[in-house]
């Protein structure tokens, strides 16, 4: 059950020490949970205070500092405050990252791949091969590029489980599925045919068939269904499934999506209050993630959490009382190999990203203008994967 604000207050007041992300694993041991915030969050509601500037000023908002992080505090967002109070030393915030588009579909692609073409996204590139579900897409976007053999989609209604179990199909209408022994014979025949055929397609098909055999052997019986007890996903159940998959060595990357409080969305061209409600819900969900991780200390040492949204929002209100799209956004990293308690970059008084010294993370004239490619290079570096087209943000990484 999701904790209420009163319960959160009580827990903190009673001196409960929430589990901390540990950071001891090597690059190839790390696993990555991407929590994609769909629709364009407004960093000025939490991450990048623009108080006292000409930007829109939220009534009741003040600055609050927790360790290295100065955030926007508001009485309506207690979960945000408590999360920073308890985890400031775990959190790396990257500010002023420019995603050079103002349309959602293009920005999502840019955020996750660093490019506008058909490149594979960061989680797919990090996922590697040799496990049953290298990049498990529980919910949210995926850009497989030319590596679709690494991607396992669950489907909106858990079609994956049903396909694995052979339950999908008109078998209740008088047809009989083939016996397992016969399936095995056919599998072997088809795989041999693919391995004997020439060309890249055949080679990839053979690889997919081998992957499928592993998937069927290891993932059969897993239930990915989110029961949705309320108006949104059952995130605690998702976290258990995800962490089980990580611990079992079945996945290296997982994609999950946050669609706002009660799935009301983050794209607040109108009804700006939605940003506040959504951030509170998001950080409540991160507390739930922490709860799920609490009983898995070994996994906590290996887990990297990435929370990011495809765009930010304009510093000023539009004519309808909302905020339109803005190319600068923030990202939050936590976990294994991440330098907690660090702040990378920042905004100027007008909400524009400032260039950054990648070594120190401090804003710097003549430094680097941050983009998603730097975030991607940082993640690839954390995962020990070569091939980033940009320099990683070294200041975001532990020594």
């Amino acid at each position, binding site marked *: 059950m999701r904790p209420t604000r009163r319960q959160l207050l009580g827990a903190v007041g009673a001196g409960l020490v929430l589990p901390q992300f540990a950071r001891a694993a090597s690059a190839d041991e790390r696993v990555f949970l991407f929590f994609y915030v769909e629709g364009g969050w407004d960093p000025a509601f939490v991450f990048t205070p623009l108080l006292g500037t*000409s930007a829109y000023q939220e009534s009741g908002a003040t600055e609050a500092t927790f360790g290295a992080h100065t955030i926007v505090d508001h009485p309506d967002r207690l979960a945000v405050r408590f999360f920073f109070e308890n985890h400031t030393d775990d959190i790396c915030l990257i500010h002023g990252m420019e995603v050079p588009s103002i*349309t959602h579909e293009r920005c999502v692609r840019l955020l996750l791949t660093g490019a506008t073409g058909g490149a594979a996204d960061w989680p797919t590139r990090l996922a590697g091969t040799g496990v049953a579900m290298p990049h498990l897409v529980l919910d949210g976007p995926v850009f497989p590029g030319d590596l679709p053999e690494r991607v396992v989609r669950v489907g909106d209604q858990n079609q*994956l489980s049903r396909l694995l179990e052979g339950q999908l199909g*008109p078998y209740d209408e008088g047809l009989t599925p083939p016996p397992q022994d016969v399936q095995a014979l056919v599998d072997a*025949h088809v795989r*041999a045919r693919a391995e004997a*055929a020439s*060309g890249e397609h055949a080679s990839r098909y053979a690889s*997919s068939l081998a992957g499928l055999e592993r998937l069927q052997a290891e993932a059969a019986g897993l239930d990915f269904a989110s029961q949705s007890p309320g108006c949104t996903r059952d995130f605690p159940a998702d976290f258990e499934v995800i962490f089980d998959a990580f611990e079992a060595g079945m996945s290296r990357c997982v994609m999950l999506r946050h669609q706002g409080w009660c799935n009301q969305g983050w794209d607040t061209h109108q009804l700006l209050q939605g940003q506040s409600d959504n951030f509170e819900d998001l950080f409540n969900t991160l507390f739930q993630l922490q709860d799920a991780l609490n009983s898995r200390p070994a996994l906590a040492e290996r887990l990297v959490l990435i929370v990011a949204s495809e765009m930010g929002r304009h510093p000023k209100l539009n004519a309808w009382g909302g905020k339109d799209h803005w190319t600068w956004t923030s990202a939050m990293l936590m976990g294994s190999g991440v330098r907690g308690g660090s702040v990378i970059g920042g905004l100027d008084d007008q909400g524009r990203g400032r260039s950054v010294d990648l070594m120190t993370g401090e804003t710097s004239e003549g430094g680097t203008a941050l983009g998603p490619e730097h975030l991607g290079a940082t993640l690839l570096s954390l995962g020990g994967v070569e091939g980033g087209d940009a320099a990683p943000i070294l200041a975001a990484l532990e020594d």
Partner: protein
Amino acid sequence: MTLLILWACAGGEPQDDSTALEAPRLLRRISLDLRGTLPSVDELDAVEKDPERVSEYVDLWLETEAFEENLVARLGERWHTRVDVFPVEYQDYAMAPEEEYGFERSVGEEPLRLVARIVAEDRSWDEVVTADHTLANQTLLDIWPLESVSDSPSGGGWTKARYTDHRPAAGVLTTNGLWWRYDTTVSNLNRGRVAAVSRILLCDDYLARPVSFAARDPDADPSYAVLEDPACQSCHASMDPAAAALMGFWWVVLYSEPEFANYHPERERLGETYLGVTPAWHGEPIGGPEDLGLAITRDPRFHACAVSAMAESYWRRTPSWDDEPELSALRDAFGGADHRIKPLIAALMEGESYRQADPRLMPPFQLESVVRDLVGLEWTEDGVRMLDADPSGVRVLAGGVDGDAVVTPQSQPGLTRTLVFKRVAEMAAASASDTDLESAELSELVWWLHGRRPTSEELEALDALESAASAIDPQEGRAAVIAALLRDPAFVTY
């Protein structure tokens, strides 16, 4: 098991991807692309004997009803209108849950059906944006202000129809189906719609242009930036005047069925007020949607885009600069045929790129129509065609396009696609009793399903598979062979 694998390996018959396909395999590709079904054994025999006959079949199959039906699914890969959710939903029309899928496909296919009918009737591509009618099925006739203008429906119950709400007629530009997919908001003011039209019909994607606010004055009123800021103007100077021509479709009340279903002539001139511009197409003043359609037909990108879009669809890859000589010849052929698509497709299929042996992945809509044709299998669940939908179906898992989260077909095999194809092959095999698949000679079966004569080693491997499966269950021998052939690399590619 080891023996089986050795035999199966020996059956491999590699073909260099850079060479041209042999005639029977080419015929198989053409048949799948035009009809969504495999060629018959007789048709394969005919082109094996005389490869020149391939062109005859192209001409023949372009005239089939299956071509029009197949084209609808193919267009969906680019137009992205066959989505699983719209701003107005089936409940708004008091429909039952089992009617949801039919409702969504009816709405999303309206523009695609119109385009496919224009192509099937061999009319000019210009009519896509100038036709004085749309196409509607009974669902749309029941819920939208439409009247049929044809005595007898054809093509799956779709009939020519006209809107009765006094909207102008400009082909797809005045269809509810297109604008429900590409909806707008109070503040967006049709701009996204212009971007969609530009991407689909002109191959010019506004959204692909990089945007930076770095040089922009954030203190400027955002409402006026699109009119005044040079960086914004690079897109908005052409986008906003075109958006102004669509103000009759602008919605001021969101999620309202009457608001979305009906045209609003009283709003036609509101562009000047809310967008700050009068309707124009790249500087040429226009009136409403009818003028917009005509202006698009005069845009040199329109016909060139039709050629490259068709090439991309049938080549199953994005054209590159290296393709320019072939594309140039195709553009000439298209112009010489009064911009009719059928001659363009025929010319495409004569071309080197189409005939190259590099394999293309069978998209889910082809898999669906092939197994329907072979064994009569219609894989549905609660009225949903499982290979054609996503919330409960497997369209994206099978490598297809949902038009929303996934906008390009998968071009390489992947895990979930392979799993879906395995399950469909098993279903088809289980459904094959009393069909020609069950009774055909083994060598003929391979010839039919793969468009390639099997080697003796391949037949031995299949024989061995049949025997081994029969030993487990006498009923499973032939089913195992059929499932194996339907999952073979030679079947899942074309």
